[in-house]
């Protein structure tokens, strides 16, 4: 519950900060280019997660739909608030600390998603621009209940997951084309979370908090921004996250409208 409050508070703070900053800059007429860009987006990733002190691993697959509001506070500095709905798949996660060990094979679990981005231009040349980008996303799954099959008495488990992803690094954008800006984003990209599960079978009961950690910690993203017209921008990105025994990946699509 503390976690929920903490991240909800963080999301609210970012939104407030964005609103406050926007209002302040707008009021002071500090920059005529201050803008707000609402948008929608879709993202999917598949990441290898490890658990039980790196003893076991499985895949976390997640796709989410987001609404975002990007506030350009001053030229080259913007904050972006994210909120959305996600479906995350934790299948093959095994809980061995319950009276009866269980393995999840339940498919997607829905939940809300909150997050924020901060972007600051560092320097630019005629054809290139280098920015610093930081991002975090917090997924809070809704509580679900499942039957335990094959026992000779009735029993069930309830589960509630969350995960968080934080990344930071430079974005190098080629600005030599008109309306089309390819970029590469190199980032430190960390994913962690927890799956709390409770089991009840007649007089038997138990619970387990399973900590999960993404195996990959670095990400290389290749993407492009396309200005369809002055007010509408499309952004597409593919990410590759290597780890010692494989490669995780993700894709992202966003459409943003400028006022």
């Amino acid at each position, binding site marked *: 519950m503390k976690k929920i409050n903490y991240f909800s508070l963080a999301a609210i703070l970012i939104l407030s900060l964005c609103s406050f900053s926007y209002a302040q800059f707008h009021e002071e007429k500090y920059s005529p280019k201050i803008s707000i860009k609402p948008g929608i987006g879709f993202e999917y990733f598949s990441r290898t997660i490890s658990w039980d002190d790196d003893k076991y691993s499985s895949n976390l697959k997640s796709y989410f739909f987001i609404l975002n509001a990007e506030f350009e506070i001053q030229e080259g500095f913007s904050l972006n608030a994210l909120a959305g709905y996600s479906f995350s798949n934790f299948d093959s996660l095994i809980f061995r600390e319950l009276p009866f060990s269980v393995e999840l*094979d339940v498919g997607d679990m829905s939940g809300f998603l909150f997050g924020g981005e901060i972007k600051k231009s560092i320097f630019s040349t005629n054809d290139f621009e280098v920015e610093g980008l930081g991002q975090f996303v917090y997924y809070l799954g809704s509580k679900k209940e499942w039957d335990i099959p094959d026992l000779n008495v009735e029993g069930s488990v309830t589960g509630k997951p969350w995960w968080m992803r934080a990344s930071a690094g430079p974005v190098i954008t080629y600005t030599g084309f008109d309306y089309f800006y390819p970029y590469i984003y190199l980032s430190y990209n960390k994913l962690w979370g927890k799956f709390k599960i409770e089991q009840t079978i007649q007089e038997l009961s138990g619970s387990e908090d399973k900590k999960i950690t993404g195996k990959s910690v670095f990400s290389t993203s290749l993407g492009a921004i396309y200005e369809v017209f002055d007010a509408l921008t499309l952004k597409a990105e593919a990410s590759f996250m290597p780890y010692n025994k494989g490669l995780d990946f993700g894709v992202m699509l966003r459409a943003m409208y400028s006022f």
Partner: protein
Amino acid sequence: MKTKKIFFLFFIIYIFIFSASFQHHRFDRYKKPLYRFFRPRIQSINKGLPFQLKEKQYVPDQILIKFKPTLSELLIETTLAAYQTKKINRIPRLNIYQLQIPRDITVEEMVYVMNQNPDVEYAEFNYIVYITETPNDIYFKYQYALYNSGQSIGIPGSPHGTERADIKATAAWEETKGEEEVIIAVIDSGVDLLHPDIETKILSSGRDFVNDDFDATDDHGHGTHVAGIAAAESNNNEGIAGVAWNCKILPIKIVDEEGYGDYYSLIEGITYAADNGADVINLSIGGEFTAQALEEALKYAYEKDIVIIAAVGNEGGAVLYPAAYDDYCLAVAATDYDDIRVDWSNFGPEVDVAAPGERIISLVPTWYPSSIWDDFELPPYGYGFGTSMAAPYVSGFAALIKSIKPWLTAAEIMNIIRYSADDTNKEDYPGNDEFIGYGRINMEKALVPIKITTHK
């Protein structure tokens, strides 16, 4: 020409016998020519009959007594002297006295008189316990109880088992084979400490309450057979596999060479096991009578989170004690190679689960008389029948659960064993019934993670 025909005839007969005998032996190292012709047999410990109480029901000149805790040592001594009884022994943990009574009074009278004394909490008979299994002929065959492929169960002509009518041990071993720290106390006739298929699995030479020493060597055979089922050395290219590959056996002898013991020794054995690190207690023994002292000993062990597994008995009647103490014991009935309850398995509401108890191969003490073993230096094995054989499957199973989840309480482990059982007689008796309780144990279901797929 005639000689040639006779020689040819003998040759055909020889080939026929050789082929017939060859298919019965699974252990290559024992393939010695003579052995195939003389199938090893062991003398039955009880002339091929199941152990049943025939004469005495309690020790004729002894009683068990517990005084109220307010009574001082001096007053107890005075009381005992006043009744002309002699203290034989005392279990300090439970403050239970074993008394010898005077010759001019019967045990019944003494129990009655003592129970009239307001300083006495209870006085009762020192009942006889007895074992419930008889080893039979020896054959080296598959252990259908652990994995039943539908093979022939015994000698040629024996029935074939039903495929997968077993306790699903092989799948469970993928998850755990047990931990050395987990100890199964076998309270029985002792264990053959020198049998090559178990000697490395024995924690210590144990405790002998029959001869009052610290050498629980088996002079009967029952305890060795039981211990082998629970935890014989496994994956060693020899003999049989135990259920709990890596767990240790603590042998505690309370049954004499004739197969009998008394409640006092049983109580001593249980408290000794509880005080010496046992995680699981196997009781393939039973008596027909209830006794507060015995229940108190079981409670003492249970409260130390020791899982107590007890055989229900083989008379086709009521569940024996201690298995009938439902609050503390997991009572085990017997099924066969077709997952059918055997009709000699005792029954009643106390039955919790069942395990295979029909024609179970396990260890026989190395001193057991057999010219075959002597001639070929074979470690002996034999078949046993009874709930005595069923109980150690459950004890080994409990030890595996304790190994993989040491934080679980005894009550939780017992419930896991109950809830994961296969209700093999559900067509006739759905649910928990008095014949096989929740059903035949299923180790795979309890130990291997269950796939959760169904939404509530």
